[in-house]
């Protein structure tokens, strides 16, 4: 929460942190050499904190172009013998997995920690994957913290485990750990170490680190051996927490849901032994067998996939075939979405035939009745957002008769009404790749939208593909100079690097031209007339068209004006001229614009003065306040 506390070199001091910040501090205490990331909720504060801390401690930090590159950066460091960390959200793991799943075959010389943040409940992600399974698939030993204290301790432990195994180790968090606030005790930070590797040119590196079938076969055996060692370490890990009481009932749990299980026991007044898994891969098989041997009933409390459940069901067949296991597989616990204490209470009450102490059904029924009053409050594009202007112009220029393909970023908020620019959006880079496919079979023009950071992340290979395969579509690259959705991290288009260091600015139009795009236009996002003309012209062009629509993010315009002490203009509606056509609301929808009786109005303190609404008003009723 405060970088002042986190940058302290005093060990023993207490700091108030988010789980994410605890991970960043853990990396510093473990003596990380190089950290890389691509930002994404719920992991963003890990990288942002590392970026800040890199100013005070001796390590390199970079915002990478995408997660695969970030993983490769970390891999390079760890192969050479250094200490590295790579950070991303759950979906970022998918992007990075090519690098990660192969790195296991070469192994590493130093140590490397992969931090990946899942999001049960899909608060701001588009998937609810359980990366604990990926640990198993990829042979990545995986630690799962449940609170900020464990987040820091397990980060440090992950480095030491990685060093022992000569393999990358994963730290898997969920959003309720990432964004959980609490107090941690700071540990000591190693003094200035030498972070330079004297590369041995005579060593036959290729025998281990050039992955071809002949080197991967021994690599495969090495990774299997490493997992066996990890399994032994796991059996004695202090992160496995077992609380035995005199009861036939047991609970097996992992991560943040551990707390809900304990609270449910309290609420239901049930005594049970509790096994909390700290390392989810490999699992402590011997300890688990021992635990379930003495039980009649076992509740497996875990979010997302029945990962522990299926494992323990298999174990039980050998050691305690008569044990009753209650989990997701037999319908006692729900498969999807985030858990809380009530989920565990309901499951246990059903299985043990106990009275539920809180009237959940009644309360939930009452909440349903409230839905008429409690209107939805979806996230929307901000006042003055240049993306709104770009998307509006794109729709007007094509009169709504086009396929609009979106991408990951704020601009995807232009998909629902009133803007309606967005028919498809799957993942980073969709706008270009999916358009290439649509091009073969769809009879309408294709107009796609991608942001600056996403363009560099995974738009570029798609664009090369489009040029090469002579695809006919129009791509708007919305360059607002920020990775806005995740908290204004810099990207290659900004010319700023991690730790606020200056970097080389990569010019989007130069990249586009270099790829062979012949129809390229650069337009100011606030110039609706020019944008409409550009889109119309590009749609008419046979082949790949790119329009770079450029204007700084409205939130940055506001913060700049505050910093410089320059007031932004404000607009108002002239009620005598407004004829209530509502285009500004039902077609454009900038948040400060409201209905005041028969005419439109603008809430002055929310207006940031972009003036775009004044350009589009057919009655010229919107004017600048002089």
């Amino acid at each position, binding site marked *: 929460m405060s970088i002042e506390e986190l940058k302290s070199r005093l060990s023993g001091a207490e700091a108030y942190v988010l789980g994410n910040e605890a991970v960043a501090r853990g990396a510093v205490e473990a003596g990380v050499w190089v950290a890389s990331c691509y930002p994404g909720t719920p992991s963003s504060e890990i990288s942002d904190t590392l970026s800040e801390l890199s100013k005070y401690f001796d390590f390199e930090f970079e915002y990478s172009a995408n997660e695969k590159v970030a993983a490769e950066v970390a891999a390079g460091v760890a192969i050479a013998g250094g200490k590295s960390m790579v950070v991303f959200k759950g979906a970022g793991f998918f992007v990075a997995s090519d690098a990660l799943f192969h790195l296991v075959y070469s192994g590493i010389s130093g140590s490397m920690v992969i931090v990946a943040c899942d999001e049960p409940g899909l608060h701001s992600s588009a998937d609810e994957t359980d990366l604990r399974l990926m640990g198993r698939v990829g042979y990545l030993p995986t630690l799962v913290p449940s609170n900020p204290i464990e987040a820091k301790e397990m980060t440090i432990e992950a480095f030491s485990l990685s060093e022992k195994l000569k393999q990358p180790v994963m730290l898997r968090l969920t959003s309720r750990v990432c*964004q959980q*606030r609490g107090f941690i005790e700071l540990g000591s930070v190693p003094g200035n170490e030498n972070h330079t590797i004297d590369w041995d040119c005579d060593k036959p590196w290729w025998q281990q680190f050039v992955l071809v079938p002949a080197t991967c076969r021994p690599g495969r055996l090495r990774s299997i051996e490493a997992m066996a060692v990890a399994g032994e370490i796991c059996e004695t890990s202090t992160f496995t927490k077992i609380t035995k009481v005199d009861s036939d009932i047991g609970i097996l749990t992992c991560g943040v849901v551990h707390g809900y299980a304990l609270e449910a026991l309290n609420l239901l007044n049930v005594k049970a032994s509790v096994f909390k898994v700290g390392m989810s891969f490999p699992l402590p098989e011997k300890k688990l067998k021992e635990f379930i041997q003495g039980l009649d009933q076992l509740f497996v409390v875990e979010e997302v996939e029945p990962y522990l459940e299926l494992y323990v069901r298999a174990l039980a067949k050998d050691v305690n075939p008569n044990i009753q296991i209650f989990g997701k597989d037999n319908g006692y616990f729900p498969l999807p979405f985030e858990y*809380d*204490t*009530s989920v565990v209470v309901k499951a246990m009450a059903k299985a043990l035939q106990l009275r539920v102490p809180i009237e959940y059904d009644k309360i939930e029924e009452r909440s349903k009745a*409230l839905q008429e009053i409690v209107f939805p409050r979806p996230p929307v594009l901000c006042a003055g957002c240049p993306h709104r202007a770009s998307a509006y112009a794109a729709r007007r220029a094509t009169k709504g008769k086009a396929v609009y393909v979106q991408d990951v970023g704020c601009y995807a908020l232009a998909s629902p009404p009133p803007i309606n620019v967005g028919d498809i959006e799957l993942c980073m880079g969709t706008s270009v790749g999916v358009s290439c496919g649509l091009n073969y079979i769809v009879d309408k023009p294709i107009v796609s939208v991608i942001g600056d950071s996403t363009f560099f992340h995974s738009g570029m290979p798609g664009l090369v593909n489009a040029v090469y395969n002579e695809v006919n579509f129009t791509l708007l690259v919305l360059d607002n100079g920020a990775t806005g959705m995740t908290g204004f991290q810099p990207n290659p288009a900004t010319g700023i690097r991690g730790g606020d260091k200056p970097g080389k600015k990569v010019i989007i139009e130069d990249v586009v031209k270099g790829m062979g795009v012949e129809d390229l236009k650069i337009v100011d996002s606030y110039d609706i007339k020019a944008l409409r003309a550009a889109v119309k012209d590009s749609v008419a062009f046979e082949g790949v068209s790119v329009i770079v629509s450029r204007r700084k993010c409205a939130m940055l315009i506001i913060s700049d004006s505050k910093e410089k002490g320059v007031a932004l203009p404000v607009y108002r509606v002239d009620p005598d001229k407004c004829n209530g056509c509502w285009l500004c609301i039902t077609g454009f929808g900038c948040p400060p*614009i*409201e209905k005041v009786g028969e005419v439109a109005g603008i809430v002055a303190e929310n207006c940031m003065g972009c003036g775009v609404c004044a350009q589009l008003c057919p009655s010229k009723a919107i004017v600048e306040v002089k």
Partner: protein
Amino acid sequence: MDKFEIVVAGVGGQGVLLLGSLLDKAARFDGIKTIVGSEIHGMAQRGGPLVSYTRLGEDVFGPIISVGCADVIIGLEYIEGLRNIERLSKHGCMIVSDTKRPSSTMWLTDSPYPEKEFVLAAMKKAADNVLVVNADKIAGTAGNIRASNVVMLGAAVAGVEGFPISQESFMDAIRMTLPEKLVDINIKAFKAGVEATS
């Protein structure tokens, strides 16, 4: 104290997360050992709803306040208060700011912001105690309407029975957390909130 659970609900920009951290820190100053705070803030910057949980006491192990368990909900706005009311325990207290934050998407469906009386009636159906605080006006009188959230904090401390954190600790937390130039106005706002419900 076995357990005391506080929900803060509002819209991005109203200062929900600030109240969350002030609650956590003030509880720490009062020597409360177990403090678990939690927030979800992915989409909030784009006008979405925002919720923070602060859970105190020895019986607390996880970060989420589950249905029917909150002792207090501090609603910085009517609808966001009501949106979270299912978290409130039957004997808990809903303390809500007399503030309406419409959503810009309301205009698309032509459904106006619900009448305040309507919202309050729904709240009273679910909770024994409902307290409305004219926080924006009180904050304005104290010097800055933006300190409306801290007015609500003061009002909750003084107005909610059994609130386990002292006023002194809140003022320490304010001094420690906010930039120096904002400390005085927020202390003033906090005290004005206390006065409003004492």
